[in-house]
């Protein structure tokens, strides 16, 4: 028997059995009923050697069109950004990647301090008082924010949520909220600007614990958070802001500055590859008042007996380990290594670099929008970050045609918004050169077969 990742030789196995006093390895499983063992064998393909495995996986990888091999102008919650090599250098350190959750702080200061740095970065970017050590992704972070608002204001069971939110986020909130007693989800439409209809929101905020907006929203549009906050607060609800493109926070006013009570989102843009949609990293910031109602792990600063500064997991009484069914969330394993990547990326760029990249995103997206506006028309007039919605008859067909020509022309919106069936959501970031945008625009023209 060739053992791949287990070091034992047959002689050692025998020696260990002798020490245990067991006649065989099978004997160790004597508590398992025979009838279960009879059908226990697994039939899966395996036994590949390392070179065979590499061949297999390389072949599978080649069947996928990696960014760069296939010009793409798609965002919609997962963004192509340039990641400095130093980020992977840091996250590939096996001291970080092969550690468990830092349950023994004295030998986990690396992870703990990096998490504390991540929390500080999230708090700074969102303009919030505090942040946790990460969530799974932007969608589940949004759902957890809604649950928290609900916990904080149980007497207000409704949740008012923008329909211009990323559809996956909205669907996730729906799933999380679906079994909570009395919780009712109300979606509000968007206007011709592409922003959430705040008037419509006002009408349904009466008994709501929170109003949830995307910032920027799914259409790339920069919502008027200040107005939304004023409205929500007037009605006694919290404002939850969720950001699917975290890079925007390097340039736009922070949700906190605009009055949001909770600011969550997806951090993939800040140093993580798209990786077919995961792992990214959810972030969760909020005002001080939510401190003991927050979901997820938090790292806090403290001292050792000699007065040295150190970091520990703290406020554990909120968590399932201790509180079990009364915990603020069920989350246990989070996305710590991804949070580390964010901390490294943001530190490499600094406030100036972040602003510079974010501004470049704005410029490129607007350049592309302008370039395409002869072929289609901008569906919304609101200010946008690095995504915009282009309307053009037969959008879905054009999109298919573009794929055949070797371009991803954004994502067709009809699948989620029947009323936007002729619309594509397009994105340009700093990785798109002007030349590539030109090429893309020409191909688009061709695929569309002429003017708008």
């Amino acid at each position, binding site marked *: 028997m060739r053992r791949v*990742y287990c070091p034992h030789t047959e002689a050692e196995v025998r020696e260990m059995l002798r020490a245990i006093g067991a006649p065989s390895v099978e004997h160790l499983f004597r508590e398992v009923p025979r009838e279960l063992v009879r059908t226990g064998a697994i039939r899966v393909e*395996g036994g590949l050697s390392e070179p065979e495995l590499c061949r297999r996986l390389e072949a599978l990888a080649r069947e*996928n069109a990696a960014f760069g091999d296939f010009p793409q102008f798609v965002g919609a919650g997962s963004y192509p950004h340039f990641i400095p090599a130093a980020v992977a250098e840091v996250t590939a350190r096996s001291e970080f990647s092969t550690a468990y*959750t830092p349950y023994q702080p004295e030998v986990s200061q*690396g992870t703990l301090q990096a998490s*504390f740095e991540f929390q500080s970065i999230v708090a700074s970017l969102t303009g919030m008082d505090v942040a946790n050590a990460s969530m799974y992704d932007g969608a589940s972070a949004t759902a957890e924010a809604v649950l928290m608002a609900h916990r904080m204001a149980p007497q207000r069971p409704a949740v008012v949520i923008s329909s211009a939110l990323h559809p996956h986020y909205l669907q996730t909130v729906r799933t999380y909220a679906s079994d909570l007693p009395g919780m009712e989800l109300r979606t509000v439409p968007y206007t011709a600007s592409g922003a959430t209809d705040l008037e419509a929101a006002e009408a349904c905020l009466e008994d709501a614990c929170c109003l949830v907006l995307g910032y920027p929203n799914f259409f790339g549009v920069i919502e008027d958070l200040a107005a939304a906050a004023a409205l929500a607060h007037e009605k006694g609800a919290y404002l939850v802001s969720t950001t699917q493109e975290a890079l925007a926070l390097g*340039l736009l006013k922070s949700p906190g500055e605009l009055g949001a009570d909770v600011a969550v989102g997806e951090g993939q843009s800040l140093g993580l590859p798209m990786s*077919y949609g995961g792992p990214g990293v959810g972030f969760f910031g909020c005002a001080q008042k939510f401190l003991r109602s927050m979901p997820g792990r938090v790292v806090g600063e403290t001292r050792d007996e000699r007065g040295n500064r150190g970091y520990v997991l703290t406020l554990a009484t909120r968590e399932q380990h201790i509180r079990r069914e009364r915990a603020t969330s069920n989350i246990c394993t989070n996305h710590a290594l991804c949070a580390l990547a964010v901390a490294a990326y943001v530190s490499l760029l600094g406030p100036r670099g972040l602003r510079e990249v974010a501004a470049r995103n704005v410029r490129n997206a607007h350049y592309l929008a302008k370039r395409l506006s002869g072929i289609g028309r901008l569906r919304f007039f609101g200010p946008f970050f690095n995504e915009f919605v282009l309307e053009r008859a037969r959008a879905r067909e054009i999109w298919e045609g573009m794929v055949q020509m070797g371009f991803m022309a954004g994502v067709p919106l009809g699948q989620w918004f029947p009323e936007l069936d002729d619309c594509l959501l397009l994105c340009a970031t700093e990785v798109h*050169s002007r030349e590539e945008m030109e090429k893309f625009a020409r191909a688009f023209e061709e695929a569309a077969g002429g003017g708008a």
Partner: protein
Amino acid sequence: MKGVVGGLRGGLLAEPLIFEIGGSGRYAPVVCEEEAGGDGEPFPLQEHLLREGVEGLAEVSEPEVVRHFTRLSELNFSVSKNFYPLGSCTMKYNPVVNERLARLRGFSELHPFMHPSFCQGALRLMWELERDLAEIGGMDAVSLQPAAGAHGELAGMKIIRAYHRERGDGRRKVLIPATAHGTNPASSALCGYEVAEIPCGDAGIIEASQLEGRLTEEVAALMVTNPNTLGLFEREICQVAEKIHRCGALIYMDGANLNALMGVAKPGDMGADVVHFNLHKTFSTPHGGGGPGAGPVGVKKELERYLPVPRLIERDGKIVWSEDFPESIGRVRSFYGNFGVMVKAYCYIRTLGGEGLAETSRMAVLNSAYLRKRLEQVLHLPYRAPSLHESVFDDEDLRHLGVSTLDIAKRLLDYGFHAPTIYFPLVVRGAIMVEPTETESKRTLDAFADAVAAVVEEAKTDPDLVKAAPHGTVVGRLDETRAARRPVLRWRAGEADRDR
């Protein structure tokens, strides 16, 4: 003699926060191409939308960033450096080739909305992984969407809820044994369930007899972990399952401990209707200091239609996503799950194959049995039934010395080992939960057993040494009460260097 104890010496230095390192005005590296769109034209967004700049971020150079995090990494214990017998966490070797393969551009630089014709490689990998996990768990269908174990539990309990709801059945209770991991009750609660705890009897397992009187029409499910967190195989699981099913309830099986049973016995055969897998435990993907992991959820045929959407289907010889499952519980997150983690688990399965996975479980149990044999000579073992992949000791024999489980754990750090899981499961007072995994050598197990014996000896001869441990780490025992009482959860400019 602090610092030269237990063989430990060393060169670790505390590291300032990244915010305390830089200087304002450091030049950031440029991550843009030279040519931009619309350069020269006025900036497209109005001033009032823009912030002044982000306060409180570090302004540091690339060399400083790399050095900072490299130094931080040194302050971490990791399974790449030494034995990490953290019970319930399955800290096995993480194959490095799998890391490399997950980074292949065709995987890592793949957009989730890529046209299905141009990501068949990724889709096939997921398709095969779904089927492999189903086979391993004895289930009929799998969703890879959940991001971690607890997330799998959430999806699974939602499925159970959807099942009952569809039958108009308003069952409100979930039975959970006292040995269960905290995520089990928390996930149930998140699905609107009330939790009814099954106390832990002398045998440490659920006895079919314990269900008497508990199996009302209110019971929606039993959540069970097998082997349970005492490392004990739930011997009566088949009888228990039968009773549960007979009363119309379902079985949720927490698969976190599957490393004990692969190729030996399948959850599906034990009666589990829903099970989740921890790819970051059993399937060797690294834990990352707390994720990302992946917690796929598997179900039996009759529950398949409730699985999260989107699901993979075959159409015209291609694998594509479909949302067309009206009874689905919906999504539990964006996109399709932690794909990068799935690639590694796929590699692991393809490397080992069915027989290799079975041998994995056999060797994991052998290692645990061997280590238990050695440790029970020095530590008290509250449940003496044969255990599988892990075993749980406690501090009963040490309490009279004033030495606790926490002290033993901290002192082991000085010997260069990570501590076992402590104070879990809750049913054992002062629990010390040891899971060696199959990737450790006898030599390592012996060294660890020797260290535990030495610490126990110290507890008798020099208890203060043990109670003040650790001595050889970059910081000493940290004040957790202080952290919780006056929470400092972020750095703030101006408060910098408060007390350095």
